[in-house]
């Protein structure tokens, strides 16, 4: 499903990802762990086609994401990817349900009932008509999850999706992921939570821009 081949991402002289190679099979659940500033978000952005690598190739489901243009990447994101951002990135002046419907609109057609169902799934149906800017951090996070899954994408990317949640809501969210996993979706989750990694098939550690399956590679570049 995902193939990274010697991917380098550099901001000026700062090398964030240093020759990362990675392979994720379809239907696999991969957890990514690593200290703050190690490049986790950067990696997700590259896979999602939000950003382009300095060098190296990225393949996602027969598409070489690193080689296609703006519009093709937008289309790719729309069709293939559901993404939950670390900072949620909701449109502040739209309501919770409108935020979800926006993703539907960009994909195909907005459908209020479907959007409400997705919010119900994350336990937010009661706050559906509140402005996103008025929701709490955890609520916003759940709206972001509902938005990510609404178009039924084959690949789900989530950047610390349970970071702001209490135990009960965390369980709800993890149940959703588990079900999606059962349905055969590919899932990549950035997390600091050991409980979350246990649900996954595999954990990748990232440290100073280097990935490893186990242990720690420390190397300042």
């Amino acid at each position, binding site marked *: 499903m995902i193939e990274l081949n010697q991917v380098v991402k550099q901001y000026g002289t700062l090398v964030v990802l240093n020759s990362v190679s990675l392979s994720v099979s379809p239907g696999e659940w991969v957890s990514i762990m690593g200290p703050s500033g190690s490049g986790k978000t950067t990696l997700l952005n590259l896979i999602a086609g939000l950003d382009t690598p300095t060098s190296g190739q990225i393949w996602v489901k027969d598409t070489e994401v690193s080689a296609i243009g703006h*519009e093709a990447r*937008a289309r*790719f*994101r729309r069709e293939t990817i559901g*993404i939950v951002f670390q900072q949620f990135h909701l449109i502040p002046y739209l309501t919770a349900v409108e935020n979800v419907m926006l993703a539907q609109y960009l994909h195909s057609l907005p459908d209020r009932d479907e959007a409400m169902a997705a919010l119900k799934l994350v336990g937010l149906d009661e706050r559906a008509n509140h402005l996103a800017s008025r929701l709490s951090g955890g609520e916003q996070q759940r709206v972001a999850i509902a938005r990510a899954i609404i178009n039924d994408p084959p690949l789900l990317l989530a950047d610390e999706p349970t970071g702001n949640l209490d135990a009960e809501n965390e369980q709800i969210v993890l149940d959703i992921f588990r079900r999606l996993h059962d349905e055969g979706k590919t899932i990549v989750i950035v997390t600091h939570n050991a409980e979350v990694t246990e649900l996954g098939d595999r954990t990748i550690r990232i440290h100073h821009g280097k990935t490893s399956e186990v242990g720690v590679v420390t190397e300042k570049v």
Partner: protein
Amino acid sequence: MLFRVVSASIRHRLGLYVPMLITIIISLALLGAAEIVGVSFKGIVNREMEKYGANVILIPEKGEVVNEGVPVQVRNTRLGDAEVNLAMANTGALLAMNPGWLVKGEGDVLVGSSVAAQLGLTRDSPIEIDGIQGKVAILESGTEFDAFVIVNGEAAQPSMVLLKTADPAQYKGKNAIILEEITRAKYGFLESIRRLMLYVALISALSAIAVIINLARIDAGERQKEFGILGALGALPSTIARFILAEFLLLSGFSAVLGLVFSMALSWALVALTAKAWPALSFGAVWYVFGTALASFVLASSIYIMEFRRHSIVEEIRGE
């Protein structure tokens, strides 16, 4: 959905948009008013030209009957020891035709200022000339009539006919004196005013465009963040364009309509109050106002769209 997002965005930005719209409407009103004033000046100048008074002095041939204007019959007579020119005419019509003439006093015999100075006649004093009795009113016309005494009466055999016509050229070739000394100055003036107002309108339009674009971009950071989110959800540049264009077209239509209404009202007040004339309707103003509003908002949105195309989504989402 498009409408929902756009209207939510506008509501969200009301604090920003209200001052912006007020500015735009006033700028557009200035632009429209300049154009309307430029066009209206012709009417104003033509009205002022009325004060020029008679512009053709026709000397009728023997037996020729002139059915227009104010006939004046002139003869020499004596007033005391002095010899004076006496003119007989319908003085009411004569004064109405020449609004620029100054009449001092309430008397019914118009004594030209030169004659009055020469003979020491003063206003409202009694006078008897050729058996006609009356009171002196002193006429200061700045014309040959200042050397006349004019009494009200019928000019049975006119020596001249004063005419006020829009087309003095038709009297060319006749025995007539055509007075149009200020005509050239008038055309020069109108041409200067027209060009000046055109530049005023042009400068206002350019400044309106610059101001609108910049005001519409004051929250560019926020805007980019939103576009970044849309982009991350898979929106194409064309979709982004649709969102921003829809929003700005709505704003431009709103401000253009109000701007036009205001420029009509303003130019009306301006021309009516300061120059006491009716403003001319100008289709130019309609085009200018709508064109400027449309052009500036379309330009502002294309800058956003261009930026969106140039930046990576990650940059956009940060809103830098």
